[in-house]
C-alpha cells in the first residue's frame, strides 16, 4: 500500500480498517544469498539498499528482539555532517544528502527536520578549530556558517552567554543539520525493504557462525541453522559479543550512553544546540519534550542503564548554559550500549574470514550515519569493494597507523 494524504482521509472515513501490517512476519528460510545480523537502523538500511540499489535478492535481516529496540530507538535523533577529517566528512555528507530525500524514497514520514545544529564556541582556540572544521565541511560540499554572539543571542535569547567559565563567543552552525524521528527510520526502512522481498525475522538471535576452512557459510540461530552466501554483522553495541563467536577480537569497547527527556513544553528551542565544553546538548522533539544528553559514562557496560554522576554532570552543564531547563521536569531517562572504537570512527569492511563482513564501531554518532552506512555496506556486500565514501573505514587502519581520530584522543575509547 502507498501511504499518502488521500489514504489518510480514506482510512479516517472507513474506521482505519484498511492499513494492515507494515511488513510481513515470515519464518526463516533454510538459506539466503545475504544474511544481515541486527535489525537496527543500519541492518535494515543495508537490506533496503542491497535490494533497491544493487538489485540483490534472497536477503534476510535477523533480529534477536524486535526491530528498533536497540540504539536506533534509544538515540537523541540528531543528524549532521560537521566532521573535519577526509576519511569522515564525505561519508557523513553523503548520509545527510540521503536523509534529504529519504521520505520520498521510502514513502514513509520519518519527520526529517532540518532545523539546524549549532556548536557553541567559548575561546579563541576553539574558534580557530571550528573555522578549520567549517572550511573542511565546505570543501566537501557541506554547509557551515560561523555565527557571532549577537546572532546567537537573537536566535536563542534564553542562552546564558555570560557564564563565567564558558562565555559564549560564537558558534559553528550547520543549517542543514537537524533531527529525525528515530523509530520511524527503523520502521520506514523495514517496510520498504519488506516490499522489495526482504525477510525481516524478529526474535531470531544469532548464536554462532558456520565456518568451514576459513569461509563463512551461514549462521546458527535461536530459530535454527540458516545458510548464507554472505553474512553481514551489523549489531552496534553487541559487536564484540557477536564477532567473538567467529573467534574475532575487535578494536571496540562497549560503553553506556544516557539520554533524558523533559515533560512536553510549548516550542522553545528552534534547533539543536551542543555545548561540547560542558558535556551537554539539547533539542526539542515535535511532541515538545526537551531531549538532552552529554558524555558516555566511561566504563565498559552492557547494562543499558547508567549511573548518577553522569546524570548530575549533564544537568549541571545544562543549567550553566540553558538556565530555563531548571523549570522543566524530567520525564524519562535511559541508556544505550555504544560500540566505542579505538579512534572514534566506524569500521565497514570484510573480515579475515571469507564471506563474513563487519559494520560497527559507531560510537554515539551512528544514527546520522544510518542511510549512508546501509548504502555503503550494501555496496561492499554486492561488489566486494568499498564504496568511494567509505574507503578509510578499514580494519587494518589500526596496525597501519591510519587512524581516523576526529578528536585526537588516541586509542582510549571512553575519550572519543
Amino acid at each position, binding site marked *: 500500500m502507498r501511504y499518502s494524504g488521500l489514504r489518510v482521509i480514506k482510512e479516517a472515513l472507513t474506521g482505519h480498517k484498511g492499513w494492515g501490517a507494515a511488513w510481513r512476519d515470515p519464518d526463516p528460510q533454510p538459506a539466503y544469498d545475504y544474511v544481515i545480523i541486527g535489525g537496527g537502523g543500519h541492518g535494515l538500511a543495508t537490506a533496503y539498499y542491497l535490494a533497491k540499489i544493487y538489485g540483490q535478492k534472497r536477503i534476510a535481516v535477523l533480529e534477536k528482539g524486535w526491530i528498533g529496540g536497540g540504539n536506533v530507538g534509544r538515540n537523541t535523533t540528531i543528524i549532521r555532517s560537521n566532521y573535519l577529517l577526509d576519511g569522515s566528512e564525505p561519508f557523513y555528507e553523503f548520509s545527510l544528502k540521503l536523509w534529504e530525500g529519504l521520505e520520498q524514497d521510502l514513502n514513509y514520514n520519518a519527520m526529517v527536520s532540518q532545523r539546524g545544529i549549532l556548536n557553541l564556541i567559548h575561546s579563541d582556540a576553539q574558534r580557530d578549530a571550528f573555522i578549520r572544521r567549517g572550511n573542511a565541511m565546505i570543501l566537501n560540499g557541506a554547509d557551515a556558517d560561523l555565527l557571532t554572539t549577537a546572532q546567537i543571542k537573537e536566535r536563542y535569547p534564553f542562552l546564558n552567554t555570560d557564564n563565567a567559565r564558558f562565555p559564549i563567543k560564537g558558534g559553528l552552525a550547520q543549517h542543514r543539520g537537524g533531527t529525525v524521528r528515530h523509530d520511524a527510520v527503523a520502521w520506514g526502512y523495514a517496510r520498504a525493504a519488506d516490499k522489495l522481498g526482504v525477510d525481516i525475522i524478529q526474535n531470531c538471535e544469532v548464536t554462532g557462525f558456520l565456518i568451514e576452512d576459513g569461509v563463512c557459510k551461514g549462521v546458527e540461530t535461536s530459530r535454527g541453522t540458516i545458510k548464507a552466501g554472505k553474512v553481514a554483522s551489523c549489531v552496534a553495541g553487541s559487536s564484540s559479543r557477536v564477532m567473538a563467536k567467529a573467534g574475532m577480537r575487535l578494536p571496540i569497547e562497549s560503553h553506556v550512553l544516557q539520554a533524558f527527556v523533559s515533560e512536553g513544553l510549548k516550542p522553545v528551542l528552534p534547533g539543536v544546540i551542543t555545548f561540547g565544553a560542558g558535556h551537554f546538548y539539547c533539542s526539542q522533539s515535535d511532541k515538545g519534550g526537551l531531549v538532552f544528553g552529554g558524555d558516555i559514562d566511561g*566504563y565498559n557496560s552492557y*547494562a543499558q542503564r547508567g549511573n548518577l554522576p553522569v546524570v548530575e554532570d549533564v544537568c549541571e552543564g545544562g543549567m550553566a548554559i540553558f538556565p530555563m531547563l531548571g523549570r522543566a521536569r524530567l520525564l524519562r531517562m535511559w541508556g544505550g550500549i555504544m560500540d566505542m572504537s579505538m579512534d572514534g570512527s566506524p569500521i565497514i569492511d570484510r573480515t579475515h574470514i571469507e564471506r563474513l563482513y563487519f559494520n560497527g564501531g559507531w560510537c554515539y554518532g551512528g544514527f546520522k550515519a544510518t542511510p549512508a552506512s546501509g548504502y555503503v555496506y550494501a555496496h561492499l556486500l554486492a561488489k566486494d569493494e568499498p564504496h568511494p565514501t567509505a574507503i578509510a573505514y578499514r580494519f587494518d587502519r589500526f596496525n597501519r597507523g591510519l587512524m581516523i581520530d576526529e578528536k585526537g584522543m588516541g586509542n582510549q575509547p571512553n575519550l572519543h
Partner: protein
Amino acid sequence: MIINHPLLGPRDAAEFTYLGDAALIHRPDWAAPDALPQFTDYGYLRDNPAGLHRELWFHEGGDRSWLVVTRDTTTHEITSVELARDVARREGRST
C-alpha cells in the same frame, strides 16, 4: 557505583578515572621478534566481554593509586577490588 578501595574503604566511582581492561598490565616485550603484532593487539584489540571484566581504575580524586576492579558489565556489580601493584607483582610484572 561504589568502589571498595582496599586502603580507603568504600569510595564513589566518580572519584576515579577509568583506563580499561586489566590485561593492559601485561605490556608486551618491545624487543620480542613479533613485537609489532603484539603491540597492535595490546594497543587496539579488546575482549570487551558481557559479564565479569577485570579493569584498571585510577583514584585520581583520592590517593592516586591504581586499582584492579572486577565488575560485571551486565549489572555493574563489583565483586573484587585489589591494588594494581599487588596484582602486577603476583602476575610477575613488577617487583
